[in-house]
């Protein structure tokens, strides 16, 4: 279908230093083949379960995958979908055309049959209305003995795609680990029935590209990757208040809490969640919280506290469609400016915006490093699409990146025994030496065990005492702001790819990376020359370097999942470069390569 060979090349230029944060494509060469399965039905029919299992089977079989989920803010009923696109080569984005539509209910057929590809087919329960499209009517209820219809569907799909039944059964069993034996048995039987039934049919099936042969990979969604990245960074304390689409980070961490000696606590509200994390971080535990827009709104005051008291803390904001309650389960990039300016008063901060599941892992690690280096809040901005999207991810090497020092050490000179420790010592780069209360000598050689540590929210003197001395105020404002440089030294630079001297440069940030890169590739395939530029970090930035890149491009288009073009505004503010052309999507769904290409064509840019 689409040639993605050039989607993630190393960008060779000293302007934008390229560092690989995604390595999917470097291990698996791209091909132009991909295949897309969409499972649709009601909440409660277990479609996310089989979607997840199918994703894992595909990855184990040797495919690259990208899944995407849509669901409503309810527990049963409504209309949900789980789409998995897979390919022997690397895929990075969801796509619109459906090759197999698995319809667990009638509504799914009518809602999605118009998206079927040329070879597309509907797999549907025999009892449902089957639509006008090519379809395979499966007697699912019978095959499942009225129980695990979803596992029957999984079996049928597995058989169509040509996935080995053993492999499928293995994944299913892993997934059901801990469930009652009877449940496992019944599911396995349903799966088998699905496989068996399909094998007995004689009809032409869609052509499915075969898998590639490669190293085992992980099947992770964005939230799981953040959880693992945090664990790899030395996370020791996590507090949260449930909020879609962030909650599954907590669920993953809780799952591993005992093994990893981690404290996870559900707070009474988001205000408490961040204040707890700040308390824990002050006491020495690398700490993180995650939430979404409304919950983050409540954390604003404590963001400012982390900055004033100079406490390292990582804050994940998984965006959903606002304002207010909005569409609680839909995706958006509407909170960039909100998070960038959150918290009253002025202070440095960093905002990381991973573009892929793999980047979720690496940038979470990076976030802890940054927070620890400059003593303040670091933000990770994701969204519902990325949070819930499964990718195949190469195994992570755990040796190359050092974990954050769990135990803080002074970066300055240890104080003389008798001297009082200065928690807010004014230093050249603004970062003060840091001790942990009660652990001074145990953590930091050279300090007396009786040293005292202060964290304070007022304007304070070096010893953390409240001050009304306005000359001290000035010094402290400048001390804090100097720490921006510490963050600037650590910037994760923008990445770019596509044609050199392209006619159109697509600029993006966060989770749209894969779709934008693929759109550029499609344009190139269509005879237009196109390139893309992705920001895995939107703050701080190096305006001069970015400006140069933007100025060199013939046409620049900014792609964002919001209605006002927030990142384009930020780029203009910082670089002076005004991107007038925008592709903006704000209906709660992620951009796809197709929709970007369509929009560009309509605007005469593609």
């Amino acid at each position, binding site marked *: 279908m689409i040639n993605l060979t050039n989607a993630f090349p190393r960008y060779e230029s000293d302007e934008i230093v390229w560092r690989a944060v995604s390595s999917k494509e470097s291990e698996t060469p791209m091909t132009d083949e991909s295949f897309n399965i969409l499972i649709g039905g009601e909440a409660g029919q277990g479609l996310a379960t089989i979607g997840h299992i199918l994703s894992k089977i595909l990855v184990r079989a040797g495919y690259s995958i990208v899944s995407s989920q849509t669901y409503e803010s309810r527990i049963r009923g409504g209309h949900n979908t789980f789409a998995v696109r897979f390919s022997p080569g690397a895929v990075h984005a969801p796509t619109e055309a459906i090759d197999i539509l698995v319809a667990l209910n009638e509504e799914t057929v009518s809602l999605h049959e118009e998206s079927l590809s040329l070879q597309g087919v509907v797999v549907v329960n025999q009892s449902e209305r089957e639509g006008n499209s090519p379809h395979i009517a499966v007697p699912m209820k019978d095959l499942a003995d009225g129980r695990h219809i979803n596992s029957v569907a999984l079996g049928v799909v597995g058989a169509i795609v040509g996935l080995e039944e053993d492999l499928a059964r293995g994944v299913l069993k892993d997934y059901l680990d801990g469930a009652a034996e009877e449940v496992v048995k019944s599911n396995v039987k349903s799966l088998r029935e699905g496989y068996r039934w399909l094998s007995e049919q004689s009809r032409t099936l869609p052509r499915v590209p075969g898998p590639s042969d490669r190293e085992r990979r992980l099947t992770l969604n964005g939230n799981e990757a953040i959880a693992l990245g945090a664990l*790899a960074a030395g996370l020791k*304390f996590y507090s949260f208040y449930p909020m879609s689409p962030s909650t599954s980070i907590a669920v993953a961490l809780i799952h591993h809490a005992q*093994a990893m000696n981690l404290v996870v606590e559900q707070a009474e509200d988001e205000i*408490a969640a961040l204040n707890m994390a700040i308390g824990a971080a002050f006491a020495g535990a690398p*700490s993180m919280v995650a939430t979404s827009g409304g919950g983050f709104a409540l954390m604003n005051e404590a963001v400012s506290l982390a900055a004033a008291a100079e406490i390292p803390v990582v804050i994940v904001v998984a965006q959903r469609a606002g304002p207010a309650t909005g569409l609680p389960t839909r995706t958006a990039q509407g909170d960039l400016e909100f998070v960038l300016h959150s918290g009253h008063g002025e202070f440095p901060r960093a905002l990381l915006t991973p573009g892929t599941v793999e980047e979720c892992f690496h940038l979470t690690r990076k976030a802890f490093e940054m927070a620890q280096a400059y003593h303040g809040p670091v933000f990770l901005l994701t969204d519902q699409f990325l949070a819930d999207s499964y990718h195949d991810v190469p195994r992570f090497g755990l040796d190359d990146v050092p974990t954050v020092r*769990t135990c803080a050490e002074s970066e300055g000179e240890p104080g003389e025994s008798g001297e009082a420790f200065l928690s807010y010592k004014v230093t050249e780069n603004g970062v003060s030496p840091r001790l942990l209360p009660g*652990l001074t000598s145990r953590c930091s050689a050279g300090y007396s065990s009786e040293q005292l540590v202060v964290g304070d929210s007022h304007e304070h003197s070096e010893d953390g005492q409240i001050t009304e001395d306005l000359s001290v105020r000035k010094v402290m404002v400048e001390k804090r702001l100097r720490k921006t440089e510490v963050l600037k030294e650590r910037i994760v630079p923008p990445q770019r790819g596509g044609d050199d001297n392209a006619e159109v440069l697509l600029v993006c940030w966060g989770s749209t990376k894969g779709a934008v890169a693929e759109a550029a590739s499609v344009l190139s395939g269509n005879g237009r020359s196109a390139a893309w530029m992705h920001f895995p970090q939107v703050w701080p930035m190096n305006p001069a370097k970015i400006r140069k890149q933007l100025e060199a491009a013939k046409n620049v288009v900014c792609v964002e999942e919001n209605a006002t073009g927030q990142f384009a505004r930020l780029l203009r503010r910082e670089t002076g470069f005004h991107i007038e052309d925008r592709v903006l999507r704000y209906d709660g769904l992620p951009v796809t390569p197709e929709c970007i290409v369509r929009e560009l064509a309509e605007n005469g840019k593609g």
Partner: protein
Amino acid sequence: MTSIEDYGSFKTAWCPGCGNFAILKTVKKALVALDLRPHQVLFVAGIGQAAKAPHYLKANLFNGLHGRALPVATGARLANPELKIIVQSGDGCTYGEGGNHLLAAIRRNVDVTLLVHNNHVYALTKGQASPTSTRDDGFVKKAQPEGAFSGHFNPVEAAIALGAGFVARGFTGEVDHLSELIQKAVAYSGFALVDILQPCVSFNEVDIFQWYKERCYLISSEHDVTDRAAALELAGQWGERIPLGIFRRIERPSFEDRFHCLNNGPLALQTVEKLKLEGIMKLYE
């Protein structure tokens, strides 16, 4: 051995005659009596006149936001169970802005001592009614020219009803008694509330020292601190007679015990086990 000098002495921003001075002194005395060294203690404070108190002694200190001392203390305690954590703040901070955290702290039963300087007023912001301002005694402020409209929040009664394991009331006019309460609260394993009646000479013309002095009495030694109904009844007393002392003290399951890793001491000293992490990674293959 710790001496009172170890806790230092500082210039304060309080008004001459304020009840806060007695509390400050008593806290120091109690810590000395417990033979706690300054570095073993972490004070956590909110914002208000009361919340400045821990700045006026030497110890570890985290002075955060108005109303948010308890969650910070909870986080710190769950990160380092070796720290003795004392939260000090005002009635507005604790029972007003921070009400939800008080409810949660009581439910959690994390090992933190909460000392509330209860002057029945928002002092630092110049005298608005707080939840503990009493309607009936005609508490009239610029912001409440016709008196506080809302009902009176009785923290002792509320804490007992909500299931707190250690609930006491002290008074700045009874410093030796207060010192004992603080010692017992700090020694108690679990969440302990000591509500301290503190006259504010600048903004509270009603509940003045003398008013309290005439009404306060020490709870009789007959009182059974494990008898909830009795504790509640006693706590209901307010006005003509004001009981001081420990209303309730029971054993409750410790919150920290539920986190296995806290048995290994401070989280900061525990290293990340890469082997285990690699095992976890495998689960996702």
